[in-house]
């Protein structure tokens, strides 16, 4: 398998294996992006995943599909911390599921002229249920 096929093929395989199909696009793209320590951006009519700001592996995403990914990013950041980002961009934190203890930090832009996504795995933050089990009230968070 060539390097060009690598990320895209892994993304497709992850989406297919999850059984979520298109619904799993955002989660799998972000998780793979973190593994690769890369940036995804739409430029010159192509969606590219780049590492260290150089080169670029083309992903099979239209601008529209990528803008849906970015809209989902904004919505998840809003769930985690209301007001932390706008639909058009920002830097925020998110969880893939409410009970997920792992927090991810993302930076994104979703405007007519620019579409870009970066993601990093961040520290472990106990989920609300675990904090309650520890005797901490939600208000103490």
């Amino acid at each position, binding site marked *: 398998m060539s390097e060009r096929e690598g990320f895209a093929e892994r993304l497709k395989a992850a989406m297919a294996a999850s059984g979520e199909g298109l619904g799993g696009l955002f989660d799998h793209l972000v998780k793979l992006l973190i593994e690769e320590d890369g940036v995804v951006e739409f430029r010159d009519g192509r969606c590219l995943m780049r590492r260290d700001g150089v080169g670029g592996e083309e992903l*099979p995403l239209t601008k529209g599909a990528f*803008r849906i990914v970015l809209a989902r990013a904004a919505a998840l950041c809003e769930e985690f911390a209301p007001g932390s980002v706008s639909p058009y961009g920002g830097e925020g934190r998110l969880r893939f599921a409410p009970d997920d203890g792992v927090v991810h930090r993302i930076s994104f832009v979703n405007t007519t002229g620019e579409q870009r996504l970066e993601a990093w795995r961040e520290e472990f933050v106990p989920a609300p249920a675990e904090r309650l089990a520890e005797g901490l009230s939600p208000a103490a968070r």
Partner: protein
Amino acid sequence: MWLLHGTTLRRAERIIRVGPDLRFVEPGAAGLPAENITFAVEGHPACLGSAARYAADKSSNFPGEGGPVVVAVDVPDELVMAAAKELAEGILGPVDEAGLLVAVVGMWGGILFEKGPAFAALMAAWPGLPKEIRSVP
């Protein structure tokens, strides 16, 4: 299903009248056209963000456009399915249509139309679709 698009009153009035314009250039967008339009699906979690929130942000950026509103339009399921199929097949190849609609409605709570057969079908149907402008609290 009813689809919701958050925008400003001035833009909503035009969308209701002539349909979404993928060539629309927003002031300050350096001449770049919109190229696509996103809708939330009414009655489902707004996994891509709520239409009201988009309307509020848009109105905040363009305060002279009459305030935030939501364009609501009742689009046949098959048109939404066609748009989802176009998005999905570019990534996954052939897809299961039944599962696709579940993914779009249940996991995204929204859909995006871009240039292609689904958008053309939406525009062709637009004059006859039930639609309205809803105020945003």
